[in-house]
């Protein structure tokens, strides 16, 4: 019986190819949106979580703001500074692997006869790669400074290419507060991204930073712990110690990478639901399309329905014929949508890997069997839901009136 219904539905679909094609295009677009958006969302999740997980033993303590965005978290220098005593006190806490001060200030860079204010970051660079992971703060050119290197700096993308009329190149000499430095590297463009926004910074070793600025403006401390489970507790402890040292309950803010990870996951979750929500709207529109097509089909086939009833079809037989037709339209549309969705996701991945929207990391959409299955199930549900009303209408027709209908 099922095979008969499928056969009948298939024949009816074949009779109305153009209309069915247009209808299934609607559902195909909806499903395409679901598949591609789900896979991009999943890809985003894996990209961010993958990168952040490797940093989950890190605690950031700062006197400034701590922010979390969908692409990561970060902090900036505040107006208060940490003291050497803070660093030493923190180093005494059990379970801490390393403590690195991060210095923020600003200075005047002279190059090619022009002067510009530039933000300065002091952080020993071998620690930098370890703390942030090279993926995030990768260099466009050059290399990170070695321990003991002097009078070298790495500059951000904007500093190199936007600040001065003539671009700064690797090996160029610049003057920072009157002190000559060699540009040993240029950061990749970061955009709005994870951690320190390096685009507008000049990065020095802590020793050069202190020497040039004459300041020890420690506004951030990067701490690594041995045991990630203790990270939250150690972060609080650090905050308390510093607050006690300065007699201010709100002197320091701390955040662990794992809590950033959680927040990021939440944000990605919201983004994913918004994306899927948009796709759902497309599907609702598509289901109205199916319903419309099926209603037209029921009307056109009133006579046929009458004939089927006259030769003994039950109401349920008639209903199944039409529901089957709706399901077939939506499943064919869903299948096409899945294929288009996979292609769309692949297209997105090739765009994003070439630096889409200044994304700090390429997003590779992840297409799972689950997302394909769920899309097809959704397509089927949409098919059933949107053909129930037309099918009921067909089933309830009086046989004699339907048979007379021409």
């Amino acid at each position: 019986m099922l095979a008969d219904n499928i056969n009948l539905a298939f024949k009816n679909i074949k009779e109305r190819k153009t209309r069915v094609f247009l209808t299934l295009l609607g559902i195909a677009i909806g499903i395409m949106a679901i598949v591609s958006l789900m896979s991009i969302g999943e890809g985003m999740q894996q990209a961010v979580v993958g990168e952040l997980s490797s940093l989950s033993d890190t605690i950031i303590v700062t006197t400034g703001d701590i922010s979390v965005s969908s692409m990561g978290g970060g902090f900036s220098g505040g107006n208060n500074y940490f003291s050497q005593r803070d660093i030493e006190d923190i180093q005494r806490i059990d379970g801490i692997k390393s403590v690195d001060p991060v210095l923020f200030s600003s200075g005047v860079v002279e190059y090619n006869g022009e002067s510009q204010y530039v933000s300065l970051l002091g952080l020993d660079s071998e620690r930098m790669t370890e703390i942030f992971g090279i993926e995030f703060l990768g260099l466009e050119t050059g290399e990170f400074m070695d321990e003991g290197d002097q009078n070298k700096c790495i500059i951000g993308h904007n500093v190199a290419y936007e600040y001065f009329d003539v671009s700064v190149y690797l090996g160029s000499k610049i003057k920072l507060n009157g002190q000559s430095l060699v540009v040993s590297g240029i950061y990749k463009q970061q955009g709005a991204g994870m951690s320190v926004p390096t685009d507008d910074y000049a990065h020095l070793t802590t020793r050069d930073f202190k020497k040039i600025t004459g300041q020890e403006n420690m506004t951030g401390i990067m701490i690594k712990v041995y045991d990630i489970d203790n990270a939250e507790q150690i972060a609080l402890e650090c905050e308390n110690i510093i607050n006690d040292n300065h007699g201010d309950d709100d002197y320091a803010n701390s955040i662990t990478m794992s809590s950033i990870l959680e927040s990021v996951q939440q944000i990605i979750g919201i983004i994913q639901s918004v994306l899927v929500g948009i796709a759902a709207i497309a599907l609702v529109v598509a289901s109205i399309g199916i319903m419309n097509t099926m209603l037209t089909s029921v009307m056109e086939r009133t006579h046929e329905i009458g004939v089927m009833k006259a030769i003994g079809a039950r109401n349920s037989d008639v209903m199944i014929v039409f529901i089957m037709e709706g399901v077939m339209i939506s499943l064919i549309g869903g299948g096409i949508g899945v294929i288009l969705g996979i292609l769309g996701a692949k297209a997105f991945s090739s765009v994003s890997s070439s630096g889409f929207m200044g994304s700090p990391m390429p997003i590779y959409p992840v297409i799972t069997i689950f997302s394909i299955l769920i899309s097809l199930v959704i397509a089927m549900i949409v098919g059933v839901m949107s053909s129930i009303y037309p099918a009921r209408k067909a089933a309830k027709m009086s046989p004699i009136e339907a048979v007379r209908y021409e």
Partner: protein
Amino acid sequence: MKDNYAIVTEELNKIYGKGDTKVTALENVNINIKHGDYIAIIGPSGSGKSTFMNLLGCLDTPTSGKICIENIDVSKLNENDLARIRREKIGFIFQKYNLLPTLSAFENVELAMSFANVNFKKRSERAEKLLDMVGLSHRIGHKPSELSGGEQQRVAIARALANNPSIILADEPTGNVDSKGGNRIMDILEDINNKGETVIVVTHDPNIAKRAKWVIQIRDGMVSAHARR
């Protein structure tokens, strides 16, 4: 209830509309049709013969009165039970054949059996046998649009016989068919009757009516005469 009758009607009325627009299509029709009868219902157009046929075929319900088909009072049945009577007891042949245009001759015959949940193998065998019986074994894969009027009507006869009903109702079966084709159709109906089935044919063609054992004349919704041929 009178036993041994294929169809019995008692005080059968069918009224369309209400008030000023009321039209009485059938009035107090009492008829007994025995098993194995071959009956022609004649009358001018608009006399109510098609209405009567639709009531007998359980396609329509009477305004009042009773119709019993093989001792079942169908005027009291719900939609699904009526569908079962149409499926099991009655084979309906329409003037305009009413085959499903998307299905082949074979599939049209088979469809009727699929509603009766006959399995695929039995269905195929029977559909082939029936199409062979009406002389269309060479046309089983053709769609209605590829068949002549007479051929389509023969497919419709095969379909009407698909579920082995005891009553065949034919509403102007030769109305859209040329005389040669019409004769062939009437021969087949006669054959069916000779095999013991009750056949009721609505017609306005006296030559066709002559072939029946009984002729019932309907005029203005009432049975005005019936006579054995």
